[in-house]
């Protein structure tokens, strides 16, 4: 069977989905921990919020690595 580039496109789609599962689970856990921490100690809410945003941006940065690989696969001519 001739597959051509179809497997590359399929890989790109599955890869993007897996990457999103990873980042959704990770940042979800992060947000849950932040909310629990600020519920226990409301006076550190500001610091928790800043740290949460920084950590979320870093996790998202790692995810976008995976996304760049998927885009390279999807754009194979």
């Amino acid at each position, binding site marked *: 069977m001739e597959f051509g580039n179809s497997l590359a496109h399929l890989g790109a789609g599955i890869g993007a989905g897996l990457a999103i599962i990873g980042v959704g689970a990770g940042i979800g856990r992060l947000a849950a921990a932040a909310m629990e921490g600020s519920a226990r100690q409301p006076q550190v809410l500001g610091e928790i919020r800043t740290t949460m*945003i*920084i950590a979320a*941006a*870093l996790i*998202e*940065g*790692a995810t*976008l*690595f995976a*996304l*760049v690989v998927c*885009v*390279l696969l999807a*754009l*194979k*001519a």
Partner: protein
Amino acid sequence: MTEEAVQAAGHAAEAGGEGAFNPNALLAEHVLDQRTLEVPFLGHVHLPILHLGPYALPITRHVVMMWIAAVIVLLVSCVAARRRARVPGRLQSLVELIVVFVRDELARKSIGHHADRYVPFLLTVFFFIMTCNYLGLLPYAATATSNISVTAGLALLAFVMTQAAGIREYGVAGHAKNLIPPGLPAWLLPIMIPVELLGIFTKPFALCVRLFANMTAGHVIILSLFSIVFLLKSVMFGVFVSVPFALFINGIELLVAFLQAYIFTMLTALFIGMSAHPAH
């Protein structure tokens, strides 16, 4: 490599339906660097090519956007710093807010003493990236930081500053010795040295790819949402799904533009701090 692949896909699909809507061509035209500048009322203006000796350097859209960002940063900084009044005016207060934030929270906390040496570089990086990111959200403009060459240049600067900070404090030999954490059992050395050497290069690489991917992803999502409307040829879909989602993503882009500038600056300050004053 990516650019050629996208443009090849765009041309191939263009040849298919004459006059049919082509999402690949739309994405290629708006996300990739072009040699034309889109000016309102004048359409596409072709940009010149600079000839320096044997090199031909075409001026592209992203280059023009970087120049505009540089001029904006220069003007705002110079005007804000001009009067140095004891009771600052509004622009000076605003700029001072950000400057003090970068100096205290980012530089002094991460770098410790001698932090003030690196503050001008960190401020330049922060303001330049933030201005480039926000300029990309305006109509007719392009995001310079969505070009991997631009972010690679910024990451290269961060790399040079990190190594320079370490070499300045400890000398070349001392900086190389700082790679190895003290108190390490000798049998771990063959693993630690390659890992640390790789780490020197992966950290700026991550800075580069993070900024590039964040800036490109936002625009690609918005363009894709609008492309769906034309592919489905449905007005209802456009009104109730595409435009609200695109508006929402644009709002997120406002936050992401500032956040990515902040993350780049914070990580650069952290790396400079780790280089100049290793916590070991």
